[in-house]
C-alpha cells in the first residue's frame, strides 16, 4: 500500500510541475496567456481526484480550491483580479507540492489559514461552481432511463 501511495504521489508531483510551468507562463503575460488557466485547473482536478482516492483530504481540498480559482480567473474582468488569482494559485500550488512530499504530516494552523484565505479569494470571485448531489444525479439518470 505504501508503495502504491509513493507511485501516486510521484505521478501527482509531475502534474504539479506542469501546473507550476503553466502558472509561470500566465504570470509572464496575464492577459495574453489567460487561456492557460484551463490547463492549470485541469491539473488541479487530476490532483484532487487522485488525492481523494488516496484519502489525502487536505491535498484534495487545496487542489479543489486552486481548481475553482483558476476557473474564475479565466473570466476575471480586471488585471487586479487576475493578479489576486495568480497569487492565490501560487500559494495553493506551493502547498500542494509541499504536502505531496510530506503527505503524512498533520494539518497545521498555517495551512488552515491558507485554506481560509483561498476560500475568501474564491468567494470574492463569485464562489465555486455548483456541484451535483448523488440524489440529483440518480434522479437525472432515472428520469432518462
Amino acid at each position, binding site marked *: 500500500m505504501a508503495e502504491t501511495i509513493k507511485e501516486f504521489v510521484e505521478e501527482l508531483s509531475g502534474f504539479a510541475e506542469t501546473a507550476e510551468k503553466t502558472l509561470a507562463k500566465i504570470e509572464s503575460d496575464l492577459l495574453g496567456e489567460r487561456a492557460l488557466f484551463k490547463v492549470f485547473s485541469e491539473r488541479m482536478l487530476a490532483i484532487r481526484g487522485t488525492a481523494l*482516492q488516496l*484519502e489525502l483530504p487536505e491535498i484534495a481540498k487545496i487542489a479543489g480550491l486552486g481548481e475553482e480559482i483558476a476557473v474564475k480567473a479565466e473570466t476575471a474582468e480586471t488585471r487586479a483580479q487576475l493578479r489576486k488569482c495568480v497569487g492565490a494559485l501560487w500559494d495553493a500550488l506551493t502547498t500542494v507540492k509541499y504536502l505531496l512530499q510530506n503527505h503524512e504530516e498533520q494539518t497545521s494552523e498555517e495551512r488552515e489559514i491558507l485554506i481560509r484565505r483561498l476560500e475568501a479569494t474564491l468567494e470574492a470571485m463569485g464562489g465555486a461552481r455548483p456541484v451535483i448531489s448523488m440524489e440529483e444525479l440518480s434522479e437525472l439518470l432515472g428520469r432518462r432511463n
Partner: protein
Amino acid sequence: MILGEVKVLVVEDVEAMRVQIKSLLRTFGLPKVTLCDSFRKAAVALDEAEFNLILCDWHLEGVNNGMDLLHHVRSVDKLKPIGFIMVTAEGTREMVIEAVKAGVDDYLLKPLTTAQIQDKVYGVLLRKKVL
C-alpha cells in the same frame, strides 16, 4: 454472457488510477480489462476490438477529453450499444448534465469505492442486457 467474459475498456490519464480501477474490476470478477490513457488510443482500441463497457475519466491526455469519447461512441453505429460510465472528480452540475444529455449510462464520482463501482458496473451491464 457470463461476468468473466465481459470486456471493459478503462480510459484514464492517471496511471496509478488506471491500475487501481483494473484491480477493483478484477476483485468482482471482471478480468478482461484494457487500459488506455487518451482519446486517441481509446478510439483505436474500440476500432480493433469489441467491448461491452467503457469506464472513462472526463479529463484525458491530449486535446480530446472523455466527453469527446462519449460523443464518438454514441455517434458510431457499432459502438452505440456499449455501456459508458464516466469516472471522474468532476461534479460540477452543469458538466454532469452535459454528460447525461450526451448519453452517459452512469456517473461515478471519485473517490471510488469497491461497492460503488460494483453497483454501477453491474447496473449498466444489466440494463444493457450484457448479463
